[in-house]
């Protein structure tokens, strides 16, 4: 017979990994949090520090500089969902890597911290009736998050030549640009592999700030614990059930059950709606899993005569926001050779020639504020399937985004600019940039990537066209809160990490004051 482990609600906070659990697990707490990324970690910490008992479950493992994976392939296998091969199906198919580790996607993102733009907050109030999110009201939440994650502009010490060159080009053309703000401290050496986790712990992902703070306040954190069902009784959350996974193989080893009064669901924009669907909950409006926005992105690389050594320095250290009104934001991006090679055009000798000049290659990204609405549906064996068909308006933005980035590279002195366009794999002059703008793109012409899924459990003032109320509580189930990026009704136009954190903080305050204060 299996041994059942019972941990009392009064036990001290700690992080428990899958291999430490030897039998079926029964837990209970006032609040259960699913997911330890930007949303879950903040909710867990805020509620634990306010004196509530908190249990957090995370499907991934705990990684830090003591057990950092030994090579790039291992990083992908261990820290990414589907080893980094999550793809939005549509035309074009868009890869969208998502993190699976303690710290969630904050563990493997670039760490950019930007506040939700004021006009986006006002739009949400105006169009979706969401009250209490005026820029002035959100300011304290942003400030609190920024302090906690050590947000600061990227210093020139770790800026890297790749970003400097792009900024030089943008300044020559008179475009608005500057260094990005990110969550890093003095331990960041600019080793350039933020997206493979951080080997120096210089990037302050949530497993280095919010989770330890939550644990100090008594929260119990279970790694390798996958939530599979949300349990509801009389329209109110009762708990969750799931499996403890083998950290190596990812296969279920034991069952677990957490009994709770309130659930904060922060499994991410892709997995939160699927978990709700699997549990048959929160879809009376029919909007669950719909309204997916992803900020589709394009990489534009360039070849210089001089060495750039783009791998030295923070990959995402600078931005050009000149075109924000057109729905385009340019941000730094430079990746390790294994990701650079396939994204460069050509194969065989021509591609190899470029790669053997890796030091001379520079690269920058462009993300577009998408109007397209994708959706997440439940596929075979409950796995999410992401459907996203790029609309014409977004294709126009993509064309402009490539043209603007290419123009800046050429102004910076690049000899060849590489686009991800099938019929124009490289540009060598402004004349060709203009040709691109004239001719435009079709969906099947481009290769894109995305990193910012949002909107699949959107909040709103009316239950007919939203999944959650303005504080993230689902309309259909009492005490079931969504506290991740899936809440956002539209795309943000900036990297979503800080917005997710601020909104999770706001939800946690609401939960404390309105839901749990009596207990």
């Amino acid at each position, binding site marked *: 017979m299996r041994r059942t482990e019972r941990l009392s609600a009064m036990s001290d906070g700690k992080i428990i990994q899958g291999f430490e659990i030897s039998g079926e697990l029964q837990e209970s707490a006032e609040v259960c949090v699913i997911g330890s990324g930007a949303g879950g970690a903040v909710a867990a910490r805020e509620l634990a520090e306010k004196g509530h008992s908190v249990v957090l479950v995370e499907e991934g493992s705990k990684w830090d500089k003591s057990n950092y994976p030994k090579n790039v392939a291992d990083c992908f296998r261990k820290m990414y969902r589907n080893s980094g091969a999550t793809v939005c199906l549509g035309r074009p*198919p868009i890869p969208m890597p998502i993190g699976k580790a303690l710290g969630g996607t904050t563990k493997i993102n670039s760490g950019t911290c930007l506040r939700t733009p004021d006009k986006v907050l006002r739009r949400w109030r105006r169009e979706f009736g969401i009250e209490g999110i005026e820029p002035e009201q959100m300011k304290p939440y942003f400030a609190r998050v920024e302090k906690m994650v050590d947000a600061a502009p990227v210093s020139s010490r770790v800026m890297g030549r790749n970003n400097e060159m792009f900024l030089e080009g943008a300044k020559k053309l008179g475009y608005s640009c500057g260094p990005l703000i990110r969550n890093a401290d003095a331990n960041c050496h600019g080793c350039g592999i933020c997206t493979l986790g951080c080997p120096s712990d210089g990037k302050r992902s949530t497993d280095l700030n919010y989770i330890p703070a939550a644990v100090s306040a008594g929260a119990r954190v279970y790694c390798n614990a996958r939530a599979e069902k949300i349990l509801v009784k009389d329209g109110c959350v009762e708990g969750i059930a799931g499996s403890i996974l083998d950290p190596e193989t990812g296969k279920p080893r034991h069952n677990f059950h957490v009994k709770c009064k309130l659930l904060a669901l922060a499994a991410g924009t892709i997995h939160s709606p699927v978990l709700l669907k699997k549990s048959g909950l929160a879809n009376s409006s029919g909007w669950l899993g719909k309204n997916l926005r992803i900020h589709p992105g394009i990489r534009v690389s360039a070849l210089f005569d001089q060495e750039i050594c783009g791998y030295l320095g923070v990959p995402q250290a600078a931005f050009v926001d000149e075109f924000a009104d057109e729905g385009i934001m340019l941000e730094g991006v430079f990746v390790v050779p294994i990701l650079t090679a396939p994204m460069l055009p050509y194969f065989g000798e021509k591609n190899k020639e470029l790669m053997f000049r890796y030091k001379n290659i520079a690269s920058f990204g462009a993300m577009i504020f998408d109007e397209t609405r994708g959706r997440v549906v439940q596929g075979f064996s409950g796995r999410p399937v992401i459907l996203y068909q790029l609309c014409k308006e977004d294709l126009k933005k993509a064309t402009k985004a490539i043209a603007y980035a290419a123009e800046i590279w050429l102004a910076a002195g690049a000899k060849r600019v590489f686009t991800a366009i099938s019929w124009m794999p490289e540009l060598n002059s402004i004349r060709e940039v203009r040709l691109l703008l004239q001719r435009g793109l079709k969906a099947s012409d481009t290769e894109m990537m995305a990193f910012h899924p949002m909107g699949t459990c959107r909040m709103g003032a009316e239950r007919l066209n939203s999944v959650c109320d303005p504080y993230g509580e689902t309309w259909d189930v009492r005490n079931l809160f969504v506290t991740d990026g899936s809440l956002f009704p539209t795309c943000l136009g900036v990297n979503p990490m800080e917005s997710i954190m601020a909104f999770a903080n706001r939800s946690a305050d609401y939960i404390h004051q309105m839901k749990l204060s009596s207990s």
Partner: protein
Amino acid sequence: MPLEKLVGERTRKILEDLAERMIPSGGLDYPGARDMGLVDKTLEVAGKFPFGLPGLKLVAWAWEFSPLLYFKFRLLTQMSPKQQTAYFTSCENSRFMVRRYTLVGLKALFMAVFYNDPAICKKIGFCEGSCYETHGKAVGHE
């Protein structure tokens, strides 16, 4: 189990041809697929992922028969290296998205393994300064 037993001679031949077209060999100073035993390394990496090896075999055989779909009337391994390159170029320039994307996938498969090799990283100048390898050492890995 040794890799030779998991992957037959024919599959290996297909993989070798595919790898060599993606990253042609050029000797010690300018290494390519054959110079560094890319197929063996790819098989080793694929073996670490669930369904990696069967998936790789499927990819290899799909490419082997794919020329027939485009009226080439020859299997890939029956083509000369020049013909194979011409075939891949037609995939790269195709307006048919699926064809182009399968080539990108094939590139990604071999290039991910090839450029993950520390010796290749050094050759292209990646492992200088504060890069992954230096940090790997700094945090106690070999």
